[in-house]
């Protein structure tokens, strides 16, 4: 496959205006599937989480999962959408082996939620509003494994294997209106939008929203139109964009690729394209036209979903604070810089830092522990930070440091003890004898001893070379096995050196 010709990004933006659109699929974290009581679980043996409904066996009938409907309404409300007074399912007909019925149950003309908007924040702190066209309920497809092709690709495969465990898992597809005016920030807008959807879904607790696992999938539509032209250009739909960073890269790539074609007088083929994470390029998928003939018609096996006003209002009243508003509030409350807050937010640490502060820690200490030592351990062991240690324990350690009982170095040993299950922070301090030596008598004796042992250093300090005190402080800290407050030792060193 020949490499695509790309235009310089800035040059592309001078000639063309990018117009974006996104379709984000969210797998709902219900216990069972959308239309069947089969378990909705990831990673089981193939074809074990299936019922006759999941396999499309003759005579089987779908029944709507009421929890999936509630989740969908909550998500619609969180996206600022109107909830349909009456909503119905439709059959989308297509032949592909990931879909045993030869149609996907989706929604067409009466989606559960429509016309909303999502506020997003860009890296520079500016806000934008993304218009939402609709959010509709549908079912996921099975999973294909291609055999015989190179590298598991469909091209050249001799046959394919199908696992229907995922078939029928509840999905909500969120579709934006065309997004105008993003200009050079188009890639960042894409990333921030998908990130905002992920945050909203997580705050609602309706999906694990792990992109790498396919809980949250993004199709990015990109088109370019020459400056001054009203009519929209031909768009491509890039699939398989499975991380926030990929959203940004894929949008940028498509802008550069399409610009190179258009600038040479070529035309863009309306098609799906596949994003390749490893090489950072998109490749041609299948042609797609607006005339794609799915022959949608109302699903006769399912009755309309007519949510009562009481249910909608109840779900509205239960909505959590919007993640973006919450983040801005916490950032201000904690007094973090943009960078400090990003560290916390990007690490998925907002909740634990908040809990640690609620348990009495200073914001700075909570941030330092969770983004530092604890994240390092979680990464090294491949576990979630919440599995490493409880926020209350972290707050205890921070309080001991604050009170001067522990130095940072000692605190790390205490953390180790707490993680090892040796008890509360105080219990670890007591059991391991880790408290700071705060007895000035013992410190003065050690300082005097170190000064006497290094008369050359003493002379330098007396000459006003204060930085020479470092050597003495080092000796004292070593003698105290690190269990001394270095700042206090420094004070004592300067005091004793001057006194003699």
């Amino acid at each position, binding site marked *: 496959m020949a490499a695509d010709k790309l235009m310089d990004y800035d040059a592309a933006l001078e000639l063309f205006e990018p117009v974006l659109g996104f379709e984000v699929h969210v797998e709902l974290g219900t216990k069972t599937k959308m239309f069947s009581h089969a378990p909705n679980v990831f990673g089981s043996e193939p*074809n074990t989480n299936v019922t006759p409904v999941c396999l499309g066996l003759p005579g089987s009938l779908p029944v709507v999962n009421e929890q999936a409907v509630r989740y969908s309404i909550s998500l619609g409300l969180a996206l600022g959408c109107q909830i349909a007074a009456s909503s119905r399912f439709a059959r989308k007909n297509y032949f592909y082996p990931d879909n045993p019925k030869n149609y996907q149950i989706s929604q067409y003309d009466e989606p559960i939620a429509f016309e909303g908007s999502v506020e997003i924040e860009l890296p520079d702190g500016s806000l934008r509003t993304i218009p939402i066209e609709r959010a509709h309920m549908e079912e996921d497809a099975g999973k294909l494994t291609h055999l015989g092709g190179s590298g598991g690709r469909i091209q050249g495969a001799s046959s394919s*294997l199908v696992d229907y465990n995922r078939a029928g898992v509840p999905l909500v597809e969120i579709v934006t209106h065309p997004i105008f005016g993003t200009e050079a920030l188009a890639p960042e807008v894409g990333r921030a939008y998908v990130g905002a959807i992920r945050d909203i879904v997580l705050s609602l607790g309706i999906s694990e929203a792990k992109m790498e696992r396919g809980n949250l999938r993004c199709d990015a539509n990109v088109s370019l139109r020459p400056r001054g032209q009203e009519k929209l250009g031909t768009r491509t739909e890039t699939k398989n964009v499975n991380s926030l960073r990929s959203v940004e890269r894929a949008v940028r790539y498509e802008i550069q690729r399409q610009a190179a074609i258009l600038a040479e007088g070529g035309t863009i083929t309306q098609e799906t394209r596949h994003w390749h994470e490893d090489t950072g390029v998109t490749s041609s*998928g299948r042609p797609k036209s607006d005339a794609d003939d799915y022959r949608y018609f109302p699903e006769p096996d399912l009755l*309309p979903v007519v949510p009562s006003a009481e249910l909608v209002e109840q779900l509205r009243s239960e909505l959590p604070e919007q993640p973006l508003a919450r983040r801005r509030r916490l950032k201000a409350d904690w007094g973090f810089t943009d960078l400090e807050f990003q560290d916390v937010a990007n690490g998925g640490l907002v909740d634990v830092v908040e809990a640690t502060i609620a348990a009495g820690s200073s914001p700075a200490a909570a941030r330092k522990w969770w983004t530092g030592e604890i994240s390092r351990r979680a990464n090294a062991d491949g576990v979630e930070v919440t599995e490493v240690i409880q926020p209350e324990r972290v707050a205890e350690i921070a309080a001991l440091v604050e009170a001067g009982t522990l130095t940072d170095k000692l605190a790390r040993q205490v953390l180790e003890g707490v993680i090892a299950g040796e008890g509360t922070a105080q219990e670890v301090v007591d059991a391991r004898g880790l408290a700071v030596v705060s007895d000035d008598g013992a410190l003065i004796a050690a300082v005097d001893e170190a000064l006497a042992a290094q008369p050359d250093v003493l002379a330098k300090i007396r000459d006003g070379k204060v930085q020479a005190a470092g050597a003495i402080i080092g000796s004292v800290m070593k003698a105290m096995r690190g269990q001394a407050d270095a700042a206090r030792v420094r004070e004592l060193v300067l005091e004793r050196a001057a006194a003699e």
Partner: protein
Amino acid sequence: MSDITPELVRHLASLSRIDLHDEEVTSLTSELGQIVESIAKVQEVATDDVVATSHPIPLQNVSRPDEVGETLTQEQALSNAPDSADGRFRVPAILGGEQ
């Protein structure tokens, strides 16, 4: 005159993955045309205040609680499959891209 043309029949056949001979296209064009015309008679009695009906049964919100029930075993799931491997259905090579 019906809206059903030989081109439309061929298009529908292609969407449905049905291979039709020319004679079949001719006879289906006529038969489908008659069916459409017969059904179109309903339009003559339907006045503007009759809304399109997708679900004639006066029921709505038929749903089930989110509780796991009985599932098939892998053996049962694959028992009618013409071919399988590794606990999965095996299908012939797929031409064309994914949906």
